[in-house]
């Protein structure tokens, strides 16, 4: 086994060159290049974590924005409902007032018309009386040849009309 057979003659060279080569690796790779690699990895990890955090923050912000929008929309809808109710109320009131005015006018017109009808009826009745009285005077004059004074004829007509 050369490892043991050559031990005495080669151990110093083996140890020396191992220390030289491993030392070279340790100082060049371990202390020189490795920090570059790990710092790159750390930087990338940090960047990814930051990006994720930013995305999370943006999502939270968007959620908050949406919630705020929802609240605003609900408030505005409620306001709109209030405005509509108010408008309905106002409209109902004005309609009522207009109706009241219109019905008052109609009543007035009706009353005036009724008064006029009454007056006309009275006038007509009066005219019927005078016409009847004249007719009665005339009839009496033609039949009996007596002239009845107008007042008498009128009283007779009135009495006849009153008794039916």
């Amino acid at each position: 086994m050369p490892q043991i057979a050559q031990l005495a003659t080669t151990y110093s060279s083996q140890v020396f060159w191992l220390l030289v080569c491993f030392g070279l690796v340790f100082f060049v790779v371990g202390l020189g290049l490795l920090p570059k690699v790990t710092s790159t990895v750390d930087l990338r990890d940090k960047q990814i974590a930051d990006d994720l955090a930013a995305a999370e923050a943006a999502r939270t912000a968007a959620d908050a924005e949406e919630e705020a929008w929802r609240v605003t929309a609900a408030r505005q809808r409620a306001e709109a409902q209030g405005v509509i109710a108010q408008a309905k109320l106002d409209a109902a009131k004005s309609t009522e007032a207009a109706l009241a005015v219109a019905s008052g006018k109609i009543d007035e017109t009706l009353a005036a018309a009724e008064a006029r009808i009454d007056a006309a009826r009275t006038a007509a009745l009066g005219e019927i009386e005078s016409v009847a009285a004249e007719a009665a005077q005339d009839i009496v004059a033609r039949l009996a040849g007596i002239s009845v004074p107008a007042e008498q004829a009128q009283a007779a007509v009135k009495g006849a009309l009153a008794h039916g």
Partner: protein
Amino acid sequence: MAEGKVDPVHQFTIEPLFGTDHWSIAGYNVMFTNSALWMAITAVVLIVFVAGGAKRAVVPGRWQMAVEGFTGFVDNLLMSNIGEAGRKYLPYIFSLFMFILFANLLGLLPLALVGLHPFTATSHFTVTGVLAVMSFAIVLIVGFAKHKLHFFSLFVPHGTPVPMIPIIFPIELISFMVRPFSLGLRLFVAMMAGHVLLEVLSGFVISGTNAGALTFGIAALPSFLLMIGICALELLVAGIQAYVFALLTCVYLNDAENLH
């Protein structure tokens, strides 16, 4: 050695390439061997691999994804075993894991097809032992720096009855002191066993084929099919052993960092 006889451990032989006699530091020979060459190749390939992935693109390409996959994997390993305090060990654990993984995988490359001989540095306990001692030393340094002498309470688990302490303490101490050996030997044995197995089976294939049609049918062909499966298994082992080494280092570091 004639006629296709294969020496299964020859592949672990360290061959000096240059600097055999005159390269030395404080009397210790530091010749540049094939083992050193493959450790250097491992280091270079690893540096190129990680450098290619350190482009710092926010949207990573394939290469960068691969490198970030490895760093993320080791980072998770530390986080799940030690917690937030584990991140400061990332450079060491990552270097350790990747160095062992690349050394294991490079040693498995079928470069013999083009005449080169890949060498698995992690199949030598002189190499794995140094890595294990390094991890163990870091555990000791962190443990004593952070907890001072209170670190010894690691050897007395919570709720141990007082009369049991004299017995438990040495047992825990021994199991603690064995850690660097088990850590280093596990990797060395796993890598060596796989390579020896592949070499033995390839020896069967060569001798069986040379000995005629009958032995080809009953020995060489089944061995070859088995080799294909074991090659896949070895790729798995290469990854698992690197993972186990890094994982156990994390577990030991957790003891040092958080006691029990």
